[in-house]
């Protein structure tokens, strides 16, 4: 057999290739006379090629036997087709000038003019906890809009009870805009006639470069925009938004400098329409600059806090945790160990993870207690790290608030050791208001995500390894840019400390440093705070107690995990829906992979287990770019550009009860999905 790119060693082999090509052309009737003569001559002196042709002919005869076994189409096929054509005609899509504007058969045309000529860069915007019905800037496409009504697919579409989806698109002229889409229909098994998402009119965003992530606040009154690696690098920008104006306006406040082509400052975001009563409307302000944001960014449930991890631009130190309170001038650095990773929110409590180094257990010795869920094989840092091995696996905070990792931060140990070490993660809860830090009782928990109802938690159970070790495998604690899972598995576990139900978030004028009211202390269930005494806020920021010395009920995963995905995993991102009945899992299998895979686990909160009978998107999942959003009634992600020119689109898996359907945006552009 000749491989397509195999080097030809000699003329004979080249002749064989030519003969094969000619045979193929001969079979399909496009071999010209001269080449046919050459082929005949070649076959006459090449037994190998003759044998190959005979084999091809035999296969051809076999294939042609299929003609005698043609399947019969259903008798009602024309009736169904005619009905679908009539439905299409009633939609009125693509009627005038069709021959001029309709692309070759393929993806559906764009129903609204918004995307028609756009090079679309789609950024799924996290709309977690977005209250249904909260209007945004330009919700010009209300439920029941033309697009939504238009589809009359053969199969009955699902009418999900789902929150909207938002994304950022990039037009052909390089400008960006924010689009919302109602998820008011979804279709069964990828019905190709399904009408696309009904997207709203876009709200312009004056960005100089594609953002790394855009996060919408729970009240839809604010966007956090994470700058990209171009001019906007190193910034977290806050854009205040207002409730929608009656109609879009081309004007903008002076602060917003609306015209995209004249928006020279790289770090400004302009949002129209103007006319918002908010004085800061449309203005973008950096709450931090000169950093690289690492991992996820998220608002607290009440929308009053934004948390993220960031490291100095240039990489002199690893990431630290930052908090920003609405109204503050800038974000506040909470840790200084260079190894604290924001994982998410649990109500109004920050979830974060850190790293502690431990010697690799000698062969044959029992794994440390912290590794009960994991194997000691394939440890994170078996090379000689120049870091000081930690003295304890227990996350003992030495700083307040937030504390630091036990390992010596920022520099190599004074006595570098060649003893192999492995990096074990630990996680903790941090009260943003008080700085009270509550470590998990269970070690080896990395980047946990807790279901908002407090029943489940998902996390990496195992060791981690630096993403950027030196060529000899060494690294310096506190200077590692980021970490990734090493030995272990991604798991689903129970959660020990139920959170009081999060009331409807109300904007609060509470200053960033304010202490909780007396009624919130002492373990009384509060709005989004732990109901266990362990985390009882005090008047002063306090250091967390060692869980082993505490008499309080342990906080953290219960420790009876079930495996969601085994190692190796380069990166993961798992989140629950607000009801805690759906868990979306995104995994990047290899660091160099451009897209990960996303799947959905249906949870039975009563049984406290996975519901195996419902697998709307089973593992190994669908291809999805980094960044997705799960919210009430829907999961949305962006697909990578595929083969044959298949363009990216925003995909939505929507549900109502246990019925699932799917709907997608009109494909277009080369998506760059961030969160």
């Amino acid at each position, binding site marked *: *057999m000749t491989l*397509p790119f195999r080097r030809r060693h000699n003329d004979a082999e080249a002749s064989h290739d030519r003969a*094969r*090509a000619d045979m*193929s052309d001969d*079979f*399909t*009737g*496009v071999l010209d006379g001269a080449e046919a003569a050459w082929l005949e001559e070649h076959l006459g002196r090449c037994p190998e090629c003759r044998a190959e042709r005979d*084999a*091809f002919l035999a*296969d*051809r005869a076999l*294939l*042609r036997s*299929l*003609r005698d*076994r*043609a*399947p019969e*189409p*259903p008798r009602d*096929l*024309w009736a*169904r*087709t*005619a009905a*679908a*054509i009539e439905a299409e*005609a009633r939609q009125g899509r*693509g*009627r*005038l*000038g*069709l*021959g*001029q504007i*309709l692309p*070759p*058969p393929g993806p559906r045309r764009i129903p609204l003019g918004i995307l028609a000529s756009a090079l679309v860069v789609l950024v799924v915007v996290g709309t977690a906890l977005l209250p249904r019905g909260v209007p945004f800037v330009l919700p010009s496409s209300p439920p029941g809009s033309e697009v939504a009504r238009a589809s009359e697919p*053969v*199969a*009955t579409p699902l009418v999900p009870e789902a929150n909207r989806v938002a994304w950022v698109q990039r037009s052909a002229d390089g400008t960006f805009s924010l689009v919302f889409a109602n998820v008011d229909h979804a279709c*069964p*098994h*990828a*019905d*190709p006639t399904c009408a696309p998402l009904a997207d709203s009119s876009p709200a312009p965003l004056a960005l100089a470069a594609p953002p790394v992530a855009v996060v919408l606040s729970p009240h839809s009154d604010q966007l956090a925009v994470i700058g990209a690696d171009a001019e906007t690098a190193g910034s977290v920008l806050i854009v205040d938004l207002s409730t929608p104006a009656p109609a879009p306006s081309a004007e903008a406040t002076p602060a917003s400098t609306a015209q995209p082509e004249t928006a020279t400052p790289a770090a400004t975001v302009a949002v129209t329409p103007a006319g918002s009563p908010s004085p800061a409307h449309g203005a973008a302000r950096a709450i931090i600059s000169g950093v690289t944001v690492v991992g996820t960014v998220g608002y607290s449930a009440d929308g009053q806090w934004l948390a993220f991890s960031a490291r100095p631009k240039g990489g002199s130190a690893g990431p630290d945790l930052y908090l920003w309170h609405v109204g503050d001038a800038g974000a506040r650095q909470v840790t200084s160990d260079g190894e604290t990773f924001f994982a998410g929110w649990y109500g109004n409590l920050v979830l974060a993870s850190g790293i502690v180094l431990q010697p690799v257990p000698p062969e044959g010795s029992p794994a440390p207690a912290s590794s009960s869920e994991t194997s000691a094989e394939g440890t994170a840092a078996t090379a000689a790290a120049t870091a000081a091995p930690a003295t304890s696996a227990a996350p003992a905070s030495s700083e307040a608030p937030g504390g630091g990792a036990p390992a010596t931060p920022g520099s190599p140990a004074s006595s570098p050791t060649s003893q192999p070490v492995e990096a074990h993660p630990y996680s903790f809860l941090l009260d943003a208001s008080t700085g009270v830090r509550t470590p998990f009782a269970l070690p080896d928990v990395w980047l946990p995500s807790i279901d908002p109802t407090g029943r489940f938690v998902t996390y990496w159970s195992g060791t981690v390894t630096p993403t950027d070790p030196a060529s000899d495998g060494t690294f310096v604690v506190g200077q590692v840019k980021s970490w990734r899972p090493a030995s272990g598995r991604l798991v689903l576990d129970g959660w020990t400390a139920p959170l009081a139900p999060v009331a409807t978030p109300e904007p609060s004028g509470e200053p960033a440093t304010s202490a909780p009211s007396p009624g919130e202390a002492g373990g009384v269930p509060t709005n989004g705070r732990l109901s266990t005494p362990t985390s009882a806020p005090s008047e002063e920021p306090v250091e967390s107690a060692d869980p082993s010395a505490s008499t309080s009920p342990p906080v953290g995963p219960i420790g009876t995990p079930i495996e969601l995905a085994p190692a190796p995993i380069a990166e993961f991102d798992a989140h629950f829906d607000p009801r805690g009945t759906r868990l979306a899992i995104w995994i990047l299998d290899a660091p160099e992979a451009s897209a990960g895979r996303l799947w959905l686990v249906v949870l039975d909160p009563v049984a406290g287990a996975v519901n195996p009978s*419902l*697998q*709307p*998107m089973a593992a190994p*999942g*669908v*291809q999805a770019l980094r960044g997705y959003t799960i919210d009430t009634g829907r999961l949305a992600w962006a697909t990578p550009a595929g083969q*044959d020119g*298949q363009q990216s689109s925003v995909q939505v898996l929507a549900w109502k009860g*246990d*019925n*699932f359907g799917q709907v997608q945006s009109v494909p277009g552009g080369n998506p760059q999905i961030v969160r």
Partner: protein
Amino acid sequence: MTETWDHGAATAFVESLFAKHHTEIYAYLVRMLRDPDLAADLTQDAFVKAYKAYATLEKDENARAWLYQIAHRVALDEIRHRRIIRMVPWSGESRGAAPSAERLAMDLRLSGPLERALARIPERQRAALLLAEVHDLTGLELAAAMGVSHVAARAILTRARDSLRRALAAEQEAERSAEAKRDAERAAREAGTGR
């Protein structure tokens, strides 16, 4: 090229196209997807797309290849989608909740060694073989239907022939193994009965 949209003309055209070609388009989609119900849906979809794209057909004599091009795209889109999406069974109208006699007959037709071997090879190669050998598209029509150059289509077809041969060999090997296993089980049963 049509400059203004004539729904009636487009419908009439698609109806005539359907009458001539729907059987072979359906057969192609069945062979590509190995799912008669899905193939019926996609056949319908292909003709709806043909209706929508009616004005892009420049010459009526190219209609068959053009239709195959649409069907091919529909099939590949579906395969790609299906590969990455597995939806729950639709709980609404359920066609064929219990397999019909026709479905069972169809399953039998789709379960021969050749069909299984075809299912083993990459879908674009499978498409090339089906279009060229079963549906008798010429080299140029094949290239048009697959949306690639003639040279690329030829390369795909050549690779497809190699792949099919290997897949048929694998099928035969699997058959031999299964037969050997059955023989061994039969021998064991007979030995057990003898005791």
